[in-house]
């Protein structure tokens, strides 16, 4: 009973110290909140409620072809909501604007575009993109591939009809009026097909789960990944703060005083760990609440599993802090090592906001990531939150994390020098 009281009073003292350390609180609490909101906000902004991209890219269009296919492509481009199109007449002018970063891309329709399609010879549309903006480049090229697909169908159909008709004397013998009516029929067929293509594709692909419900992917999932990812990354920043605080006490001599107090040694360590463990839980609560309230992340159907995994991760993080404290010689060394460990393990363990997450990517790096607590913590959080897993399904992750935490803790206790 007294030991618990002692532990609590050491923890209480530590919490007062942490609360006064505004720098550490900024790193541990404010920075993840800012970054999480920024990334989530950006991603939400980029996608409309229907799941379509919601962006506006400046592009330049140079249509050197005055005939029907060039016009058709130009018209389609102008109709695309994501593109703010500036029509230019000069290719080098357009290229210059891309070079200066004024437009994200320039789309060039060559002068012989329609002529080539009419004669059924391959042609191309050039998309000059800004090398400094890979994302917008791939968006514009993706859009152009879609635009071109329709014109391709048109060109192919036209060629097919002409080829077959050319095999009879029909065209040769027709008078101008008949020719016009054949052309009109030709065009009618093409338009019917294009409309059909837009309305219902010839081969439909249906994605459903075992119960026959439609499967939806999308941005919500990425954001539901984003919050645990940032949370796990910043939880481990506690390693530097905790270990350097312990060593500062040793350097300042207050640790010795604590040891002289009539309390068991281990309660000093336990009190420290408890205080920092609580700070970790606070981090998780703040970040997940923010995500839930502002960004609609799902928390899954098993809140108890979330609590268990949070306590587990907190234990691993504070044990790792103790381990660093046991091996570092000075407090500033501990701070630096802690920070580097936090970044490196976050990178390898998949806690950076990159999709798909590294810990699920397989291969060499996937295996490597399994050696970090981050990968298991994230797998646990993500399974519970996004995939409705319960406590039972994340038992392997929990077991692994407790094992890691215990190993860290035991080595730390064995090696730590109080004086």
């Amino acid at each position, binding site marked *: 009973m007294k030991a618990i009281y002692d532990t609590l009073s050491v923890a209480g003292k530590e919490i007062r110290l942490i609360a006064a*350390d505004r*720098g*550490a609180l*900024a*790193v541990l609490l*404010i*920075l993840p909140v800012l970054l999480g909101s920024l990334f989530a*906000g950006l991603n939400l*902004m980029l996608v409309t409620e229907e799941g379509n991209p919601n*962006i506006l890219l400046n592009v330049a269009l140079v249509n050197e072809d005055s005939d029907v296919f060039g016009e058709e492509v130009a018209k389609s481009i102008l109709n695309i909501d994501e593109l703010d199109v500036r029509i230019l007449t000069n290719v080098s002018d357009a290229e210059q604007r*891309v070079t*200066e*970063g004024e437009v*994200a891309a320039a789309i060039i329709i060559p002068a012989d575009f329609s002529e080539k399609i009419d004669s059924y010879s391959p*042609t191309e549309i050039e998309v*000059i*993109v*800004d090398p*400094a*903006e*890979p*994302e917008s*480049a791939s968006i514009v*090229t993706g859009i*152009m*591939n879609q635009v071109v697909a329709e014109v*391709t*169908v048109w*060109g*192919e*159909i036209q060629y097919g009809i002409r080829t*077959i*008709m050319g095999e*009879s004397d029909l065209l040769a013998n027709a008078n101008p009026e008949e020719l016009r009516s054949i052309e009109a*029929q030709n065009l*009618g*067929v093409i338009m019917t*097909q294009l409309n*059909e*293509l837009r309305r219902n*594709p*010839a*081969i*439909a*692909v249906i*994605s*459903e789960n*075992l119960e026959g419900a439609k499967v939806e992917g999308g941005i919500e*999932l990425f954001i539901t990944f984003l919050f645990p990812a940032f949370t796990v990354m910043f939880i481990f920043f506690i390693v530097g703060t905790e270990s350097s605080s312990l060593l500062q006490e040793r350097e300042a001599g207050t640790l010795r005083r604590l040891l002289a107090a009539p309390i068991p040694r281990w309660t000093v360590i336990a009190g420290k760990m408890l205080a920092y463990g609580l700070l970790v839980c606070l981090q998780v609560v703040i970040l997940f609440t923010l995500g839930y309230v502002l960004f609609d992340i799902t928390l899954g159907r098993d809140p108890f599993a979330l609590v268990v995994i949070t306590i587990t991760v907190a234990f691993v993080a504070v044990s790792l802090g103790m381990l660093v404290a046991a091996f570092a010689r000075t407090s500033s*060394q501990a701070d630096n090592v802690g920070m*580097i460990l936090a*970044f490196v393990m976050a990178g390898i363990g998949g806690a950076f906001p990159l999709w*798909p997450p590294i810990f*699920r*990517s397989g*291969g*060499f*790096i*996937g295996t490597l990531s399994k050696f970090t607590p981050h990968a298991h913590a994230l797998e646990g959080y993500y399974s519970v939150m996004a995939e*409705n897993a319960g406590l039972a399904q994340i038992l392997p992750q929990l077991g692994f994390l407790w094992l890691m935490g215990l190993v860290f803790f035991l080595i730390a206790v064995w090696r730590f020098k109080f004086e």
Partner: protein
Amino acid sequence: MKSLSIALKDLQILFKNRGEVIQLFLLPLLFIIVFSGALGALGEGEEDTRVPLPIVDLDGGEAAQSLLAGIDAAGGVRTELYEQAQAQSLIEENDISRMLIIPADFTSGTAQGDTVELTLISHPDADIQQTEAVRLVIVGVASDLALERQILASLRQMGDMQANAPEEYQVFNTDRVLAQARIQFERAQTQPLIEVVQTVPSEEGEREETPDLGVVAVAGIAVLFVFGTAQVTARSIYDEKKVGSFRRLLAAPMSKAALLSGKMLPNIVVGLIQFTVIFAFGIFGLKLLGLASPSLGNDPLAVVLVCLIICLCSTAFGILIAALARTENQIGGLTSILVWGLGIVGGAFIPIFILDQFLGPVVKIIPQYWANRALSNLMLRGLGLADVATEIAVLLGFTVIFFLIGLWRFDFD
């Protein structure tokens, strides 16, 4: 001269601190490795990382064969054939995550021009992003296959329209139409009628090239970490104040300006070393790893000049932080928000076109934003010194403002 000896002393202190050296020089390299996808590239070639896709082929016809060949050829997905009952029981046990069912009428249906449905079934626990990626691959291959059907349908329709024409003009007979559609479809597979070619502007006309995220990340990460050096300057000033050696320096026979510039010089030197290390790694290291690597652009001297100005700006930033923060904790807090927070918002990881849309003019008050713009204009877009005059002017403006505020608020005692 006196400034120089102070600077030399500070550099010695800095390089003794291994943790700081790692943070300043190795951490940025780690970031580049993560963002350039080098981590992913490490594991490639050793094993098959394609997503396995169990297939239940109830059709077995020619169209189904082309579909499977197309999916395998698309990369990223590997088809595996299963019997329906076997696949069904495996997916119920979650031994396989998803399966694609090709209906029995797939070949005949596509040939006749009926709409056919492919069904991708996934286990509720399957990775949804992966399911979506698989679906997109199937949709892509299916729309290629559909081209044949579209040509066929139009030729038939044209034949119908010609039905009233005299007998000798009835050329749209079934065999002829099928053959024509097939010929065109096969040609379209190898030689599409219209191709979209992506190029980047360059001196010698356009090059065909895909801009690469890793290449873009190099300059952004360099800027982030060079500004991070401001923290070192601020902390070194604070440490000297704490132990009282600053006061002793003040007592030395030298001006305050010389003292302060002596404290600034190491930051500039460190920043320049950082740029050298990061760019050297970006240019040569990424190439060695077999990845796309950036170049210094067409005007390397301008890059050097901009780097120097960025180092100046970062140093002034450090002085500002040292002047504003009164305790070590405040230094930590201020740098984590101003240096890391603003650095990330300033375009280190988020493309600038998205930032412009999201934050509007707000990004323009972030020095890192201008530094990123200057470097990407020079290194990625291949522009010259004259084209980054605005960015340079703004960075120098920030430097002067930071330095003046720093000097005004600086407490020498």
